[in-house]
């Protein structure tokens, strides 16, 4: 069982090595001269107006929460889908109830405007 994952382990090592080598070649060959203008953050030619690590829109946070909810729901779908032959009609019914609960929540969040980006 675990032997199945040996190729993956080898692949991870080789691929990570490749990434390090590519970065290394770039680092060795790509030497340049530093000067003050080059060292400032890119801001279309302006001086940087403000620090970047600032507050940002809460909606991104909301999307992340929605993602966690629906990803957890997917964790239920995955074993259900692969064993549908075994659970049969009862499985369909159980998933129907689960989905119905989920859809109620989904409609609520839609009506509340959590999906709007205006």
């Amino acid at each position, binding site marked *: 069982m675990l032997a*199945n994952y*040996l*190729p*993956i382990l*080898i*692949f*991870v090592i*080789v*691929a*990570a090595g*490749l*990434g*390090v080598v*590519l*970065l290394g*070649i*770039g*680092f060795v*060959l*790509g*030497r*340049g001269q530093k000067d003050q203008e*080059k*060292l400032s*953050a*890119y*801001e*279309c030619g302006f001086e*940087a*107006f*403000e620090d*970047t*690590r600032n507050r*940002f829109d809460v*909606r991104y946070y909301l*999307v*992340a929460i*929605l*993602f966690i909810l*629906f*990803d957890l729901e*997917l964790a239920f*779908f*995955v074993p259900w*889908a*692969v064993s*549908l*032959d075994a*659970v*049969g*009609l*009862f499985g*369909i019914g159980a998933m*129907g109830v689960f989905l119905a609960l989920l*859809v109620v929540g989904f409609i609520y969040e*839609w009506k509340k405007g959590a*999906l*709007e*980006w*205006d």
Partner: protein
Amino acid sequence: MSVVAMLFFIVVLLFALLAAAALLTWVERRLLAWWQDRYGPNRAGPFGILQAFADVIKILLKEDWIPPLADKPVFVIAPAIVAVTMLLGFAIVPLAPGLVIADLNVALLFFFAMTGLSVYSVTFAGWASNNNYSLLGSLRTAAQMISYEVFMLLSLVGVVILAGSFRLTDIVDAQRGMWFFVPQFVGLVVFFLAAIAETHRLPFDLPEAEHELVAGYHTEYSGMKFGLFFLGEYLGMMLSSAMIVTLFFGGWLGPPFLPPIVWFLLKTAFFVCLYLLLRAALPRPRYDQLMGYAWKFLLPVALLNIVVTGAIVVATRSPAEVGS
């Protein structure tokens, strides 16, 4: 397969992928030029094919620069993450019967793990750069990628129901009678849209929308670090094309006058070209349209697809199989 043979196969595959990604940049520019009635790169070598190698040399020689205010370790590691995870995704793609690095019984989940990890690359890059454009671009990308990841997995639940397995070789074998794009056409459409958004290619390339965000999360990157982002994007295109072929278009299956691996490569090349055609053909939506489309349209459609597929499968299989 012995360990040495395995290692040889892995190294050959990795170099083939890198060469294919480099060549794809040339193919893309030539095809775009052809569709837009211009020449494209045609000077270096026959049909300009050496342009790909010239670009690799150029990108290696460019100054390797790290902004002084950046979070240096994170800044350096971010581009490597996307390239390595996208390469790792190919470990589970069966090129032909028996020609797969790891025939896992949870191959589909492994694929999702790898695409999921690539989100970190974008987030790290934008945060570590300490640049306004980078941060905005990476926030957008992260929100877009995690949204579309949900539908990507949802769209494949139908395929899993039909095949009864996560193992990609089983899924291909289950398509001997009929390729899954017929019963799972809705799943295919959702998966393809989600795959475009995941690889942030046009028309869903809002993370890099150059007219508003300069270059999005990789604004501050140069040289080979930028090259690795680029590599990751092209590998992502090839990976999702290969997955579409494997899951919906019968993988290596085809009439026997060509060997299986040729069928697989031909079908994959077709979908890569479709990606490029979309870039030439479609304008970019607004960001709110993109996210609204995902949550308000694709999510209900994907859920409905699962319910209908499950109901049909349970209804049509013989009573001996069901509920026993």
